[in-house]
Structure formats: C-alpha cells, structure tokens
C-alpha cells in the first residue's frame, strides 16, 4: 500500500456496492477477505448476537470504520493476525478491530492517534451518537471499538439469538 492510499480510492469504491446487496456482516467479510488477500495477513471475521437490520448510516459508518482500521493495520501495525468482530447487543452494535501488531501509545491522543486518522473515525461514529475506543500498547497490538446505539431488539421469546 502506498503512503496515501488510506483512506483512498479502494475504500470509497467498496462502500456502496458492498452494502447494496449484503448484510453488514457479509460486507465486512468481503472487505476483510480482500484486505487479507492484499496484505497476506489473515482476518478472522466473527459476528455475535442477534443479527438484525440497522440503519444504512450505521452500516456505512461501521463499514468505513472497519476499512480505515484495516488500512491502519496494514500501514502501521506489522500484524500477523487481525480479528474483526461485529457484536449485536440489545441496544447497540459494536465493531471491534483488533490486531496483534506493534501497537502504539495512545496516551497522546491528539498525536499518534490523530495522525492515524482516528479523529475522523471517531467523528463519524460520534455523529451517530456512538463512541469510539482505541486501546493500544506498544508491542501488544491495537483494538478499535466502535459502538453505535440501535433500536432495541424485539423482546419476544421467538427472536432467536444467533450464536457466536
């Protein structure tokens, strides 16, 4: 990946078509597959909880977050493994992107974190009343967690819960 590829053309190009036909989970898997193919780093995509429709804005924001986080991993992390987890909870959906790469010190939040494009990521999630957490430590990888509130799941007993 060239230095300025992120968030570059391919990211934008993926967005509409990936979501047009697929559930968010599938769109994420498609993004992850392509990324893994390109970088040679395996990505494990996991979906937990009861999958259900969320707003296109939320889907789009989470997909973008995943793409940007993956781009960061490719660019900075030197990871050997990436986990992309989509968690449907009762009242929110959470996207986690975790890698086992070199990590960084997130303390100077406006420094390295800002430089990694996290500010834009955060703004996008916060724009949907969500929160973005960045956990990292030098040598111990990075985990990015984007939470967006969604309509509570149906309370009926028959709303089966999908396993992990």
């Amino acid at each position, binding site marked *: 990946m060239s230095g300025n590829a992120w968030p570059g053309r391919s990211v934008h190009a993926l967005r509409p078509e990936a979501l047009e036909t697929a559930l968010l989970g599938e769109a994420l898997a498609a993004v992850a597959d392509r990324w893994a193919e390109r970088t040679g780093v395996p990505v*494990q995509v996991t979906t*937990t*909880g*009861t999958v259900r429709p969320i707003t296109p804005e939320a889907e789009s924001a989470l997909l973008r977050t995943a793409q940007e986080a993956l781009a960061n991993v490719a660019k900075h992390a030197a990871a050997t*493994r990436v*986990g992309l*987890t989509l*968690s449907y*909870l*009762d009242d*929110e959906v*959470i996207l*986690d992107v*975790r890698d086992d790469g070199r990590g960084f010190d997130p303390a100077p939040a406006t420094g390295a974190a800002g430089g990694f494009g996290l500010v834009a990521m955060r703004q996008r999630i916060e724009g949907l009343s969500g929160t973005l*957490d960045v*956990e990292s430590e030098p040598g111990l990888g990075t*985990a*990015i*967690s984007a*939470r967006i509130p969604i309509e509570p799941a149906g*309370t009926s007993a028959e709303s089966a*819960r*999908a*396993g*992990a």
Partner: protein
Amino acid sequence: MSYRSPGTRGDKPIRVLIVDDHPVVRDGLRGAFGPGPEFEVVGEAGDGAEAVRLARSLRPDVVLMDLRMPVMDGVTAITELARHGVAARVLVLTTYDTDSYVLPAIEAGATGYLLKDAPSDDLLRAVRAAAHGESVLAPTVAARLLSRVRSPGQEPLSQRELEVLGLVAAGTTNREAAARLFISEATVKTHLLHIYAKLGVSDRAAAVAEAFSRGLLTPESRNEPGRRLFLLARPVFGNGRGWRERERERRPVGAGPHRDGAVVGMRDASDDRESQPRAWHALRGGCPVEAFEDVGEILVGDTRALIGD
C-alpha cells in the same frame, strides 16, 4: 415458627386491627367487618407507630395495614412488628400497587397485599385467609410480583455473553478476556454490563454466582486443576496490609478451606451483606475456580497460595 390459625379454633372471632390514617377509611373498614361473630375489630391506629404499640398489646390475629401514613409508614411498621415478634398476620390494604410499595411490604413480612378498591367480600375472604397464614395478593400485585421475579432473568444470555461469563468465572480479567476473544476490553466491559443487567446483579462475583445457581455455567465447563474459586473483596477500610492477611483474618468460622482445597471468599459485612451468601451459593454449587471481585478491583490468583497457612 409459630403458626396461629385462629379461624380454626372453634368459634372464636378473628381479631382485626385496622391501621389507616384516614378516619373515614377506618370507619368504612370497621363497617365492612359487620357485627357478625366471625370478625372482631379490636382496635384502630392512625399511624405505624400506634399500630405497633396496639398490635403488641392487643395481640390481633390480622393487622390491616395502610402504607402511607404519618409518623411511621406501613412498611416500617411491618418491619417493627416482625422485630418485636408480633405473631399477627399483616394484610396490606392500600391504593398503590407499584413496585416501590409492593416489594418492600412483602419483603418486610406482609402476608397479603390488597388494594382499597377490592370489594368487601374479597376483603373478608382475604382477612380470613391471612388469619390462616395464607398469602393473599391482589391480582395486579401478583402479576407485578411475577413479572418482577421473571424480568431480570427472562432475557437469555447470548452465546458470546456466556463465553464472557465463562471467562470471568475462570478468573480471567477483562484484559485477558479481551485478548482471548481477540476483541477490545471496552467491548468485554460492555458485554459484562449487559450480563449484569440480564442476571439482575451488579458485579462480576454476583454474576458468576448467579450463573452457577441458574445452571448457565457448570463447574465442569472450566474446571482447571489447581485453581479454585474464591470471591474476595478488599475491605473498604484499609491500613495498608495485603489482601491475603485480610482474608485470613476475616475468614468466618466454617469458611476455611473447602474440602477439595478450595477457598472461600468473602466480603466485609460492612461492604456488601448480600454477596457473602452468594459466594456460598456459588461454592455449594460446586464452583471450583477463582473469581474475585472487589467493587471495581479484580484480584486473581491460585487460592492454594492463599490458604497455604
């Protein structure tokens, strides 16, 4: 436990004490019992304190208790009656059927809970039943209680939540659980909060205990040799000594090493009276591992080190 059943003692009337701060209501109730031989209104009280005084001296079979009253409210009065060992059955008769009234009254020891809009026939039947020690609940109150009992646990845990809970039960910290599941610690915490809400608990120790008592987790599911459960809380008062010393010091009679080498954990009574029975519950449920929780702090270790004295 004394069990008085005055209704069955020949033809003796059921002795009733009426407690309500409104004279008109008291009059109405007295009228409802009529002049017949079955009931005898032995007294009336206008507040909880007076009710306690009268109940102790008059020894009624049934106390009809309003809840909202001046000087001393009904729930406090019920508690006081129990504290004084008054054998009278308390039948709450009030206009409120909300949680904030129903549950405390029942917890304090009320035998029954009726609403003031009940027909007088229902009232008499309820007093009769209460005199026999039977529980009488207005239908709306019963429904409320049932839903209350069900609601905290009705929502099943998701597979992922069970995974998180299993890790917690195995003594894993949030950080370790996050590493294991390869997700962020923030998400682990979020899962935990949802788990607490679903189980109706407020900390991880209680969540583990509750999960075992509900059979959501089985001891075999994460029985690691050499590791044992204990639930431990750091005391809120501190003088700088380590938690091991504290634990030794505070180990109650009979709480020592479990027969299979497990420890026991505990909290200070001053800290949280409820969690100690929960800890025991977890142990009785065969919970073999190590999970500790202080309010917000997690201590992890092999308990054999802890009991190695």
